[in-house]
């Protein structure tokens, strides 16, 4: 892309290693003998962390102007909130229909 200051190989390799570590952590979490809700929350958190890392390091968002960074991350932060509200709404309507 034009005008983008790309990062060096070291940052990309470091980002890759962190992503591999987070994936290994996910594999550990799915085998944890804990409450299902806690497991799902942990997995969703890890998935968000991976998505953020990919956008920040691999897609060079770190090198973009601040306004682009905010525009990219705001929906990422809002999405879980909207999803939770939507799920609660669906469950509420389903309970009302019974």
């Amino acid at each position, binding site marked *: *892309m*034009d*005008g*983008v200051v*790309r990062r*060096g*190989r070291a940052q*990309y*390799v470091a980002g*890759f290693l962190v*992503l*591999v570590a987070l*994936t290994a952590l996910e*594999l550990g979490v*799915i085998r944890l003998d804990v409450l299902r809700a806690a497991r799902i929350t942990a997995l969703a958190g890890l998935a968000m962390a991976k998505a953020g890392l*990919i956008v920040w390091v*691999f*897609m060079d968002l770190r090198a973009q*102007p601040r306004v*682009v960074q905010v525009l990219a991350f705001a*929906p990422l932060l809002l*999405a879980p909130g909207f*999803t939770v509200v*939507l*799920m609660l709404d*669906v*469950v509420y309507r*389903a309970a009302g229909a019974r």
Partner: protein
Amino acid sequence: MTASPDGVAFETAGAGRIGMWIFLVTDAMGFGALLLAYGVLRARAAGWADPMQLFMIPVAAAMTLTLLTSSLAVLLALSAADKGRGRAARVWLAATILCGLAFLLGQAFEFRHLLDGGAPMGLTSGLFASAFYVITGFHGLHVIAGLLVLAGVMLGGGSGPALARRL
């Protein structure tokens, strides 16, 4: 940086940069819509398949690792092209394409396993099956499109800087 008529400096972005960000946003919206649909179906369904029972987790983990490796390889291709090392960039692009093909093979293996397993799961076997095949199928098409574009860039010729611009 450039300046507006009233002297305020602002940053410019070329058509390629803007186009790429628009593409990324629409791409994210496509996947977001599909995943949200999965969530709504899951919340409304009386019963749901247990993915832990259905899927081969080690295979899924290996496929994830393959995609992460392909991401790293394409970035190393970019880095090499930026430095004018066209040959190294093409080698990394070839590695990226190989990783993408390995992912698609893994996906085909997984689909075959689900279709021919002890309890066969087809496209119309239920809400979970339909949602799973649509989302992963869309992702597979996404990977195929990426591979075709990367192959075009790799075979297109040009020096390091020209390759970097196309990447």
